């Protein structure tokens, strides 16, 4: 394992009969990074995460976490990992607080009641912690899931679709927490998500999996820097804007009476704005979107 | 004259030893035992009853003349319904029975006279057969048939209390009616050992070992009249 990699996966394979859910997958997750694992439904993301967490056994391949074999050094490795795999499930006849107390009791280090309360506060469950989990909404269970994952202050957090069921505020809170854990506390985060926009915002590195294979891996910045940005404009004179942006490279696409999309790289946006404004086109709104989405779709349909 | 006196003495002696009529013998035996007004004693009972497996039971036995008899034990004990002293009580009046000599037998090394007793008054006693030690005036064996309780065989073993006709050991043999137990309520214990009973013929044997006799002391009447637990 190279220095600085918290997770190192080499030729990881999981077969169910003839079907390969994960097929010779190799990837590395650097220390202190937020790593996004992307793929369609059934691409092998959850299977990969389950193998990392020893929930299922690989057919072939090697996994190293913190430089150790997680099967051989189970106690040491998993004491430093917190995770949510698939949906967060709890003991429904207990309250959120009791669940956390139960799980805190299983930690290698002593976790105080104050620490539990702080974690509850951190995930936004204060006031509901004494309610039975059976009464929790899906979003509240997600928050509780995050709480149990970080309660013991792990060095590595593995999250499988962590924002599922969260409301918009919850998604923002989650994003801020991930940034806090990574940037402030130096934790390494591996997460999979369908919210590509969120991954694009918070992830340092990403890997796209398709049919169990690693399609592409790299830093978000370097992977997307050469990709064109899809920008949506809202203007008062769409006809004039179309004339000015007739070049096929822009792929001008109008929407309604005042909105249009063009394909343009980051550096070309300011000159286009200047061009439109100078020629009398008033711009009310510019939104750059679906950059990662496009990249993702492009990578997963190429094969 | 002297010879006549000597002859009469000899005749009296021989009749005393050899010449007691069966009735007289029975009366003499009764008379000897009759000196015991009451007694209490510790008792150890060993049971050999078909269809019952149990350990020996300790208890206390009480007797009061003429035929009150009660065994009390902490645990479960089976006492023959027929009072072992019933026969003796019925034989206290010489006019109430006819005793017939039925020969001689040796019982445990002792020459016994076998006396059949037939009551000639209406009562529970049907027939009695007694093996009597004529010297010790002790009944070593008896076989008594009553209307209510059938036939009971009894053997008495005497040693240190023989002078008061109180046995150290009494063995009672009694016909036991075979009882059927409802299958639904039985426990099918998978035991290879059969029920520990020597008598497969339907005869129950109860051995009673007596000790610590307390004779002719005060006994509370309540002992004989207290209601049984069952």
């Amino acid at each position: 394992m190279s220095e600085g990699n918290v997770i190192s996966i080499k030729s990881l394979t999981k077969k169910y009969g003839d079907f390969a859910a994960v097929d010779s997958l190799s990837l590395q997750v650097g220390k202190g990074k937020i790593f996004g694992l992307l793929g369609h439904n059934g691409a092998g993301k959850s299977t990969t995460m389950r193998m990392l967490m020893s929930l299922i056994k690989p057919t072939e391949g090697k996994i190293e976490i913190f430089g150790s074999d997680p099967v051989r050094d189970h106690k040491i490795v998993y004491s430093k990992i917190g995770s949510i795999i698939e949906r967060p499930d709890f003991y429904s006849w207990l309250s959120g607080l009791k669940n956390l107390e139960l799980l805190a009791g299983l930690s290698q280090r002593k976790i105080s009641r104050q620490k539990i309360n702080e974690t509850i506060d951190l995930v936004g469950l204060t006031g509901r912690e004494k309610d039975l989990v059976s009464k929790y909404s899906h979003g509240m269970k997600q928050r509780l899931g995050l709480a149990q994952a970080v309660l013991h202050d792990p060095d590595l957090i593995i999250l499988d679709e962590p924002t599922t069921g969260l409301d918009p505020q919850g998604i923002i809170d989650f994003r801020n927490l991930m940034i806090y854990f990574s940037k402030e506390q130096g934790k390494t985060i591996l997460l999979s998500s369908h919210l590509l926009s969120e991954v694009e915002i918070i992830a340092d590195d990403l890997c796209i999996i398709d049919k169990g294979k690693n399609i592409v891996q790299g830093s978000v910045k370097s992977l997307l820097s050469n990709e064109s940005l899809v920008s949506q404009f809202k203007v008062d004179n769409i006809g004039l804007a179309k004339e000015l942006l007739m070049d096929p490279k822009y792929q001008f696409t109008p929407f309604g009476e005042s909105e249009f999309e063009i394909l343009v790289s980051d550096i070309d946006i300011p000159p286009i704005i200047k061009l439109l404004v100078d020629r009398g086109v008033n711009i009310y709104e510019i939104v750059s979107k679906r950059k990662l989405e496009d990249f993702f779709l492009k990578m997963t349909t190429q094969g | 004259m002297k010879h006549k006196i000597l002859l009469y003495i000899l005749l009296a002696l021989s009749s005393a030893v050899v010449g007691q009529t069966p009735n007289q013998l029975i009366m003499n035996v009764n008379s000897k035992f009759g000196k015991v007004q009451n007694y209490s004693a510790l008792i150890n009972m060993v049971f050999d009853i078909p269809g019952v497996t149990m350990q020996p039971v300790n208890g206390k036995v009480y007797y009061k003349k003429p035929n009150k008899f009660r065994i009390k034990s902490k645990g479960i004990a089976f006492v023959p319904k027929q009072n072992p002293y019933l026969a003796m009580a019925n034989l206290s009046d010489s006019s109430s029975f006819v005793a017939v000599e039925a020969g001689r037998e040796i019982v445990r090394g002792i020459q016994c006279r076998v006396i059949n007793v037939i009551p000639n008054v209406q009562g529970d006693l049907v027939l009695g057969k007694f093996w009597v030690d004529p010297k010790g005036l002790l009944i070593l064996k008896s076989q008594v048939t009553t209307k209510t309780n059938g036939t009971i065989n009894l053997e008495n073993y005497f040693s240190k209390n023989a002078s008061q006709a109180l046995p150290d050991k009494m063995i009672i043999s009694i016909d036991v009616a075979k009882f059927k137990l409802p299958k639904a309520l039985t426990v099918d214990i998978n035991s290879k050992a059969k029920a520990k009973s020597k008598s497969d013929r339907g005869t129950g044997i109860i051995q009673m070992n007596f000790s610590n006799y307390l004779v002719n002391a005060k006994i509370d009447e309540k002992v004989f009249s207290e209601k049984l637990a069952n």
Partner: protein
Amino acid sequence: MNRLIKAELIKIATKPRSYIGFIAVAAIVLLIEFAMYADGKEYLSFITQALEQTFIIEGDFLNGNLVCFIILQTLIIQMPLMVALVTGDLISGEMANGTIRLLVTRPFSRNQILTAKIIAGSIYTFLLLLWLGIFALVFGLLIFGDGDLTVIKSDALVIIQSGDTLWRFLLAFGVAFISLTVVSSFSLLLSCLTDNSIGPIITTMAVIILFTIIGTLQVPVFENIKMFLFTTHMIVWRNLFDNPLDLELMYTSLGIMVLYIIGFTAASYIIFNKKDILN
């Protein structure tokens, strides 16, 4: 490991289902004791009537020891069910509700997790038996008093003196604990095989009932297999209430039950370690 065991015990203690067994035992025992108190003498009269033809019977057939024995007899089928209700759910219940992921992703090996569940399940079984002992024997003696125990076998009455009963009951509870451990280890094995919460419980009971029926039928074709059915040996505690004690039979049955426990438990470890947790 202690932390794991503590967590398992907390889960069992806080789950409402765990108390079904305790409530059921208390209810059944109190019901029987009430019935015996009200009509016990009449119930036992079939013994006394037959013997009273010939004997005067000293002592009392109806006492705490007999009532306790009747209760233990009555609960032969129910106790395994009540144990299986909890132990059959130990793995499959967590698989069904997904909480197994919480455990397996903790710094404990699967062997440790399973061991903790086995120990917790055994503690539950012990407590349930203790509860039964208190209600059946202690309450029985308090209500009905002490006395000789009458065991009604198919071919005889066995009367055991009161001073000779306590050690038999204590040993019987000990043997019953081993019998119930066979049940708990079997249900745990089924629990490792399935992700369904109810399946192992129902299957355990179905197997016990089926084997018990086979063991009871006096059919020649079944005679050869009875020896191998664990249910045949589970009732060996009753042999403690016999005179003389058939020690060879007791040791054989105990040995076979221990072998079953080892076999079921070993299989559980193998299966649980190999199991992919997919739910």
